[in-house]
């Protein structure tokens, strides 16, 4: 009964979305304020209805109602409650419902908090938002109904894919969807601005927080996915350039560019058309990301739904969205005049360089991801594009971006004296070169990866410090005065500093783990000691046991360093009998300087020896901590007073904001 109500609420939400497409749009073009005003209540109603529908589905999962098909397929009565709840979106239908739920939450937020938005812009943006929603409601209702019943209902469910029974992966999709769908807000505002034909600083001020929020969510979502791969897939890889990873990485790159270009629109009223284009591209790539995951076109490690019929439906949605918005862009963009003038060497110029590099690297990832498809379609040739390609084709652009970052971040607006900025950065540069030199001297080989990577990381982090010193004006204001000045910096500036430092830390982790990881693969019998990078890992044996819905074999390892105990590591091999599926649970001792990582392999036929893989991964944790810090920077920036709801209307004209 509750499931039928959920289905019905979803149908109603579809109807409301159609209303929300037409009425506000007509109202906005005719200037009828009551028609425009219908957008906000419609968006709220849509949110309530989708919320009800999602609650109904969650209820079915929580109560293990196996008469609902996707519950029977993806849940099990023995599963821990946490995974019953997260199982709601651990399947195709449920994840699409989560997608539209988040979409409707964003719409409702605009409706509720957008009181100071111009009525016409708000009506049009919500109408565009409802077009996206309507398309996905139709997709769910016609091809992927989550409330399908089974008759007779099975006694028990077939269990959730064991790989998804993990807290990291359970909360990974909601974050990614927050990111993808958050970019729909930037898209809706961009299309609304194109319809209206006006883009100004106020528009940018509205778009930026949505983009920022989406970017933060994507950053955290990608980080979670990467960390999950690191500890769950069993060999400590953290990025595979897998199509599904690329699908989330492309919107992240473009959203990163969009964040930076929106600053130029807001502060200097330039790059308007380009910013609109980025907003369209960012969301288009999010849709393509959905397409890559949902259709069977590119199957990959994490694609858990393969169905070409649905793929065609989503392909149609994507084609209409992209072609429609780009056509609108082509018609309206030439009319957008930029007012702000600037020289190539200026903050604006630095942000343009950032945009070029991010957009180019997104293009590289895109061609790399679709090249096998395109080649197969064009001449039937089968090619593979994997990590070695991306490492070579993508990295150079990021290296240039990192070299330019500290300089661009300190350039003044409009026109800048490059020499003066470099003079203030000299000690950061010297420090980075020194670190690179020391690393080069310490290592035995001639590989450039570690020295260059760590020097780059140091350059970015020291650059942030140099900027702090500069902004504090410690030379004139003294220590106390300088700190006071730093405390008074706008939150957006702090956000920028934190995010850039996070980027530097991630690069540090990547360089260290790639260059210095130590690996040992061997057959070990209980009592054997594995020496690796100064640690001694003693194999104490294997025990067996049973979890709530799995059985496991657990290896016991004691790690010592110069005889002093360091950690006890207990990697597991699990088998989930319902799906007959084994998983590997690596044991990791996480530290700020290194991770110790042990995986238990297969037993040998003699029953004594086991295949054991041990790793020491230097600075590994910084890859994800850095990403978290980047996200934190975004959140700090979001709390800047000029984005606060109603800030502009309450306080009158915004207080002059220091240059970012």
């Amino acid at each position: 009964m509750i499931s039928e109500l959920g289905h019905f609420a979803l149908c109603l939400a579809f109807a409301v979305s159609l209303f929300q497409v037409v009425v506000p749009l007509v109202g906005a073009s005719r200037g009828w304020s009551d028609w425009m005003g219908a957008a906000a209540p419609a968006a709220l109603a849509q949110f309530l209805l989708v919320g009800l529908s999602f609650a109904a589905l969650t209820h079915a999962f929580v109560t293990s109602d196996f008469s609902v098909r996707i519950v029977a397929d993806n849940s099990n009565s023995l599963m821990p409650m946490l995974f019953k709840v997260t199982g709601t979106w651990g399947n195709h239908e449920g994840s699409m419902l989560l997608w539209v739920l988040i979409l409707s939450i964003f719409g409702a937020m605009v409706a509720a908090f957008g009181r100071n938005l111009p009525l016409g812009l708000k009506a049009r943006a919500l109408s565009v938002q409802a077009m996206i929603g309507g398309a996905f409601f139709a997709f769910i209702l016609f091809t992927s109904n989550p409330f399908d019943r089974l008759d007779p209902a099975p006694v028990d469910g077939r269990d959730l894919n064991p790989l998804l029974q993990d807290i990291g992966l359970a909360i990974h999709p909601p974050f990614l969807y927050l990111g993808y769908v958050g970019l729909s807000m930037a898209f809706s505002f961009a299309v609304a601005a194109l319809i209206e034909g006006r883009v100004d600083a106020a528009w940018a001020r509205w778009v930026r927080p949505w983009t920022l929020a989406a970017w933060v969510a994507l950053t955290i979502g990608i980080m979670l996915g990467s960390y999950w791969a690191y500890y769950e897939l069993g060999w400590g890889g953290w990025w595979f350039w897998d199509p599904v990873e690329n699908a989330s990485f492309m919107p992240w790159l473009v959203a990163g560019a969009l964040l930076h270009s929106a600053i130029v629109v807001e502060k200097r009223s330039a790059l308007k058309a380009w910013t609109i284009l980025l907003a369209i591209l960012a969301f288009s790539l999010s849709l393509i990301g959905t397409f890559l995951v949902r259709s069977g076109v590119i199957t990959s490690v994490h694609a858990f739904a393969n169905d070409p019929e649905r793929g065609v439906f989503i392909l149609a949605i994507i084609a209409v969205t992209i072609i429609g918005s780009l056509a609108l862009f082509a018609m309206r963009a030439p009319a957008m005049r930029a007012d702000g003038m600037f020289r190539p060497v200026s903050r604006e110029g630095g942000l343009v360089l950032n945009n070029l590099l991010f957009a180019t690297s997104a293009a590289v990832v895109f061609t790399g991801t679709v090249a096998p498809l395109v080649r197969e379609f064009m001449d039937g040739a089968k090619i593979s594009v994997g990590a070695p390609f991306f490492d070579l084709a993508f990295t150079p652009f990021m290296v240039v971006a990192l070299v330019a970052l500290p300089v661009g971040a300190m350039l003044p607006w409009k026109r800048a004296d490059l020499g003066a900025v470099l003079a203030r950065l000299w000690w950061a540069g010297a420090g980075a070169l020194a670190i690179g030199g020391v690393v080069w001297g310490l290592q035995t080989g001639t590989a450039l990866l570690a020295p260059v990577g760590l020097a780059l990381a140091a350059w970015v982090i020291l650059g942030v410090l140099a900027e702090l010193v500069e902004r504090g004006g410690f030379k004139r204001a003294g220590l106390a005065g300088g700190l006071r000045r730093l405390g008074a910096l706008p939150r957006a500036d702090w956000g920028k500093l934190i995010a850039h430092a996070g980027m530097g830390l991630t690069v540090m982790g990547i360089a260290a783990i790639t260059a210095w990881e130590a690996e040992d693969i061997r057959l070990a019998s209980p009592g054997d000691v594995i020496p690796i990078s100064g640690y001694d890992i003693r194999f104490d044996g294997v025990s067996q046991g049973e979890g709530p819905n799995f059985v496991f074999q657990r290896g016991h390892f004691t790690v010592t360093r110069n005889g002093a105990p360091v950690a006890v590591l207990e990697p597991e091999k699990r088998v989930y009998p319902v799906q007959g599926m084994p998983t590997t649970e690596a044991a990791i001792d996480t530290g700020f300087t290194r991770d110790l990582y042990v995986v238990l392999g297969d037993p040998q036929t003699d029953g004594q020896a086991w295949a054991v893989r041990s790793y020491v991964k230097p600075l590994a944790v910084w890859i994800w901590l850095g990403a978290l810090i980047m996200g934190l920077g975004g959140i700090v920036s979001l709390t800047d007073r000029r984005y606060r709801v109603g800030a502009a209307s309450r306080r009158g004209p915004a207080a002059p904001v220091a240059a970012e």
Partner: protein
Amino acid sequence: MRRALLLTLALMIATPAAAVQPDEMLADPALETRAREISKELRCLVCQNESIDDSNAELARDLRLLVRERLTEGDSDAEVLDYLVDRYGEFVLLKPRFSIANALLWLTGPLAFIAGLAVFATYLARRKPRAAEREAPLSPEEKAELEKIVGS
């Protein structure tokens, strides 16, 4: 059908990730290091974009052994790769070779970057005269018009 597919897929990912097995490894550490590096460039043909170094599939194991066999026979790294491409086609390479057909793949990055720079340069160049125009002194007719408006 879909169920079966899912299950195969699931089994494929989930097989414990003991990719390189201890018994496959070569005694000579230098040779083994080369084998690992080469393995990272080669695709496990039955997997989704996984290298034979990462994959646990039977075929990946066969390929790993093949790579090591060629190396012990004295092949150079390039010869090993050529040998595998001859047998399995370019599909086996995770980094496609540069060719006319793959030109776009390899050149996207540099071309996009150069094109972007060019667009930006023209944008800046075109903006200058327009700004100069804006600041240009008024023509006599405009002056007369201004006089009329201000004067009246």
